[in-house]
C-alpha cells in the first residue's frame, strides 16, 4: 500500500511478465510493481536459459568449445565463434593468415546484420508492425542462406577453428552477396519508410526508455545501446582487431538515448555492416585461410614428442628427415606444444579422404592429446551485435580451458532495466525491452 499526497492509501499491483510472455524474447521474468499503469518498481529475474556454458567449456578441449559459443547469442553466432577463437589465438600467440581474418570479418558483419534485423523486426512486430517483421525476416533469411552456403548451417555455424576458419569462401560468394545485399537494402529502406516517420511508432519509441550517457557508462553498457546515448565507443574502432583497421566505416550515434535513437542506430549500422562486407570482398587476398596441419612428422618433432613423454603414438609415425636440415628449428607456433606442431583442425576434405588428416583430426579432438597452451591468462573482446563481447581465458597448461568467462554484452542493459522502466507506463516495457535486445542464450549462458 502506498499513500498519495492527499493521504488516501493507494493500492499497488504486482504483475508478472514472463517467463512465458510473447514479448519476453525467450525466457526472462519481470516482476513489475504497478500503480495504475505506472511502473514504480521492477525486478528482473534471469537464468531460465542457463546451460552452464562456462562449466562445460572447462571440460572441453580448446577447439571443442566453439560449438558451445554458437548457443550464446544465437542470432549472431558467427561473432561469438570469431570472438572465442581470437581469444584462444591471443592466448597461444598465433596469427591467422590474412585471408582467414578477412573471412572472419565478413562472417561477423553478416551476423551483425542478421542480429539487427531480428532486433528491429521483432520489436516493430511487438508494436503492431507485423509487415516490417516479415520484410526483415525475409531479408534475414537470405543472409541465413548465405551463412548456410559458407558454414553449412543457418544458425549453429561453428565456423571458426583455433588458427583459422572451417573453410574458404564458396566460389560464387561475392556474387551472391551482392544480390542479397540489394534485397537487404530494399527491405531496410521499405521498413524505414514504414517506421521512421510513423506517428504510432514514434509515439511509442520517442522519449521512452531514456538512459543518459553517464548512466550507460556507469552500468557498463556498450554497443548500439551506448552509441544511442551519443558515446561512439566501438571495439572495432577503439581496438581494431582482425582487419578492421584497413576498412572504412562510420559509427552511427544517437543523441537522446531513447528507444527511437536505438532503432535509428541499428538501422544505420546495418548499412555500415553491408559496406564493410563489400570492402572485404574487394580487398580479400588470395592464400591460405587457416594455418595448415602438417602431413608427415619431421624427425625433430618425433624427438620432441619423446622428450615430452608422449611416446604412445611415436610408433605410428614415420620420421621425415630433411637432408638439408634447413628450417628444422623453425616452428609455426612457438608458444604451443602439440604433437604435430599444428593446432588447426584439418579440413573436412582431408579428414575424410586421407589417413594423415584423419589421425590429425582425431589427435586434436581426443582428450589430453589436443592443443596445449602454456599457463597464462588473457582477455579479448570483439564488437558483438549488442556490444563488447569479451572472453577471459585462463589456461593451466592443459589441452582445454581452465576457465572461460564470457562477458555477455546484453547483461549490462538488463542490469539497468530498473533505471529504464521505473516511472514509465506499462506499455513502455514492450519497446524498451525490445530495444535492449536481450538474447537469453547470451544473458544466461
Amino acid at each position, binding site marked *: 500500500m502506498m499513500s498519495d499526497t492527499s493521504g488516501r492509501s493507494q493500492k499497488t499491483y504486482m504483475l508478472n511478465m514472463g517467463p512465458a510472455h510473447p514479448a519476453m524474447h525467450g525466457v526472462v521474468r519481470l516482476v513489475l510493481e504497478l500503480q495504475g499503469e505506472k511502473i514504480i518498481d521492477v525486478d528482473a529475474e534471469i537464468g531460465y536459459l542457463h546451460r552452464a556454458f562456462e562449466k562445460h567449456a572447462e571440460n572441453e578441449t580448446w577447439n571443442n568449445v566453439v560449438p558451445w559459443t554458437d548457443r550464446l547469442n544465437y542470432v549472431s553466432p558467427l561473432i561469438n565463434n570469431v570472438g572465442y577463437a581470437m581469444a584462444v589465438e591471443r592466448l597461444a600467440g598465433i596469427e591467422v593468415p590474412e585471408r582467414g581474418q578477412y573471412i572472419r570479418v565478413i562472417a561477423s558483419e553478416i551476423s551483425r546484420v542478421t542480429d539487427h534485423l531480428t532486433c528491429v523486426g521483432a520489436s516493430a512486430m511487438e508494436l503492431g508492425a507485423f509487415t516490417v517483421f516479415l520484410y526483415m525476416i525475409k531479408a534475414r533469411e537470405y543472409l541465413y542462406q548465405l551463412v548456410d552456403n559458407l558454414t553449412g548451417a543457418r544458425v549453429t555455424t561453428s565456423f571458426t577453428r583455433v588458427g583459422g576458419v572451417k573453410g574458404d569462401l564458396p566460389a560464387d560468394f561475392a556474387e551472391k552477396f551482392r544480390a542479397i545485399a540489394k534485397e537487404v537494402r530494399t527491405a531496410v529502406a521499405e521498413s524505414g519508410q514504414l517506421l521512421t516517420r510513423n506517428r504510432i511508432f514514434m509515439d511509442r519509441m520517442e522519449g521512452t526508455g531514456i538512459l543518459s550517457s553517464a548512466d550507460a557508462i556507469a*552500468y*557498463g553498457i556498450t554497443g548500439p545501446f551506448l552509441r544511442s546515448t551519443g558515446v561512439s565507443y566501438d571495439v572495432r574502432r577503439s581496438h581494431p582487431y582482425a582487419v578492421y*583497421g584497413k576498412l572504412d566505416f562510420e559509427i552511427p550515434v544517437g543523441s537522446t538515448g531513447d528507444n527511437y535513437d536505438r532503432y535509428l542506430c541499428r538501422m544505420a549500422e546495418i548499412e555500415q555492416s553491408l559496406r564493410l562486407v563489400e570492402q572485404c570482398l574487394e580487398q580479400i587476398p588470395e592464400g591460405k585461410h587457416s594455418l595448415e596441419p602438417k602431413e608427415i612428422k619431421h624427425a625433430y618433432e618425433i624427438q620432441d614428442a619423446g622428450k615430452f613423454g608422449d611416446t604412445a603414438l611415436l610408433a605410428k609415425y614415420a620420421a621425415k628427415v630433411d637432408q638439408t636440415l634447413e628450417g628444422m628449428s623453425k616452428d609455426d607456433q612457438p608458444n604451443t606444444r602439440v604433437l604435430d606442431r599444428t593446432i588447426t583442425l584439418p579440413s573436412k576434405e582431408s579428414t575424410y579422404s586421407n589417413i594423415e588428416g584423419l589421425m590429425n583430426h582425431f589427435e586434436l579432438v581426443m582428450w589430453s592429446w589436443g592443443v596445449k597452451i602454456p599457463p597464462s591468462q588473457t582477455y*579479448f573482446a570483439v564488437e558483438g551485435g549488442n556490444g563488447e563481447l569479451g572472453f577471459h581465458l585462463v589456461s*593451466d597448461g592443459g589441452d582445454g580451458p581452465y576457465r572461460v568467462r564470457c562477458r555477455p554484452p546484453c547483461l549490462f542493459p538488463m542490469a539497468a532495466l530498473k533505471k529504464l522502466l521505473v516511472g514509465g507506463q506499462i506499455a513502455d516495457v514492450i519497446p524498451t525491452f525490445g530495444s535492449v535486445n536481450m538474447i537469453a542464450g547470451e544473458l544466461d549462458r
Partner: protein
Amino acid sequence: MSESLLRGERRDVPATSNLEELSKLKAEGFSMLVDMTCVDYLPQGKTPRFDMIYRLMKLDVSTGQDRGRLEVHCAVDELPVLRSVAGLWPNADWLEREVWDMFGVKFADRPGIKRLLMYEEFTGHALRKDYPIVRRQPLIGPHSGDKADSPSFNILRPTITGE
C-alpha cells in the same frame, strides 16, 4: 595496434582494501566496470583459493575512445572480506550476485545476497572446481534426485566421476 591494450595492465590489490583501492581508481577516471569475474584455483592448491578480477576502463565520452584499461586482481577465500563496489558502479550489483551464485564468494556488506542465474533452492556453487559437472539436483532433474535417464547424460567424461 591497441589489441593488447584490451586486457590492460594487471594490478594486485589486497582483498581487505578492495573498495578503497577501486574508489581511488574510479576517481582516477576509470569510469566503466567492464566486467567482474572470479577464478577458482582449488586444484592448483593456491591460497587464498579464489581470484576476483575487476576489469576497468577509462572511456573518453567525447571521442568514444578507450583511454586505458586495468585488470585488478584480489585473492580471496570464502570468508566475507571483499566489500561490494555496487556504490561505485551500479552494474556490480548483478555481477557480484553472479560471482556469489557461481563461486560462493561472499561480500562483507551484502549478507543477504541473492543468486543471479540459479534458483534459490540450488545448493552449492556450480563453477567451483569441486562441483562435479555431472551432478544433478532436484528441480532440474527427477524429484527423487536420481540421475537423468539417458545413456550418455552422465558419462560425458570418464575422468570426472561425479558424486
